[in-house]
């Protein structure tokens, strides 16, 4: 069980940034469901054993760590952008919007925002974009877990409403089962209409 390193956070704390916020998103690729972003602030000295890139953890482990992070974090926030909005403003802008929403929903104003990926957010804050941030910085890793868990919960809820597609299993991602279901039953209201499949990708 590996834990994401804290080196960068320690450096930033040393340089005088107190409230360091990590922000990450989940659900950029799927054919259905919202894009969810989470923001987490961890204070200096907080060590969350086992917290790492959400993609490297099992869903059971993520749920365990979710409650640990929520209880140990100084503050956290969540931003959700619906499939309809994604269709309207494209997925990249939707991810940015979700991240900005997540930061706005965090109770404490951050000194520094560590963003997963290559780009800065359209937001007037001190930012540090970090490629592969979710495995290189603990606070981003924590955010990635929160985002993933929340999105999975939303998709399980959608499964109750639209049980034909198996959202509880693939969470909206384009698996063979999902693509076949789309072929058979058409799109549900929670599908992203702008995500059209090519002929050979259809189930």
């Amino acid at each position, binding site marked *: 069980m*590996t834990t994401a*390193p804290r*080196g960068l956070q320690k450096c930033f*704390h040393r*340089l005088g940034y107190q409230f360091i916020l990590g922000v990450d998103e989940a659900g950029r690729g799927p054919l259905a469901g919202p894009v969810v972003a989470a923001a987490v602030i961890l204070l*200096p000295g907080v060590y969350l054993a086992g917290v790492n890139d959400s993609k490297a953890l099992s869903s059971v482990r993520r749920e365990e760590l979710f409650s640990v992070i929520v209880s140990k974090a100084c503050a956290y926030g969540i931003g959700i952008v619906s499939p309809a909005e994604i269709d309207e403003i494209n997925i990249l802008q939707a991810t940015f919007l979700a991240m900005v929403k997540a930061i706005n929903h965090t109770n404490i104003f951050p000194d520094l925002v560590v963003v997963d990926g290559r780009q800065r957010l359209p937001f007037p804050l001190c930012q540090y974009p970090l490629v592969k941030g979710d495995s290189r910085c603990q606070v981003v890793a924590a955010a990635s877990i929160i985002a993933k868990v929340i999105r999975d919960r939303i998709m399980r809820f959608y499964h109750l409403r639209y049980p034909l597609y198996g959202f509880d299993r693939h969470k909206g991602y384009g698996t063979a089962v999902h693509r076949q279901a789309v072929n058979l039953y058409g799109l549900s209201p929670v599908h992203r209409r702008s995500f059209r499949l090519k002929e050979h990708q259809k189930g």
Partner: protein
Amino acid sequence: MQRQTLGKWGESQAADYLQTHGLRIICRNYRCPLGEIDIIAQDGDCLVFCEVKTRSSNKYGLPQEAVVWTKQQKIAKVASWYLGSQEVTMDIRFDVVAIIKSATGKPEIEWLPAAFSFE
């Protein structure tokens, strides 16, 4: 002995010293636009950023005392650059190696692991 040559001499003494104490030297004189770090080494599963300070006497204070707050900030900045550009999965630590060159030319080395912390 000139200041620069004294510093260079001290850095190689420190590197040898750390190696005999089981550290693996990753990089010496790591340079980036934010500044420089004397030695980057690996101690078990910990990445060590090491500042070497050499003096020819303790007349004007101990060498380790010369690693003041602003210098520590500088090292933290360079370290953040290093961590941002490399994919490091280890925890990190800040060490200082203080060296006094005695009159006989032999180094008196004092190693301070985790001399200052980030938190």
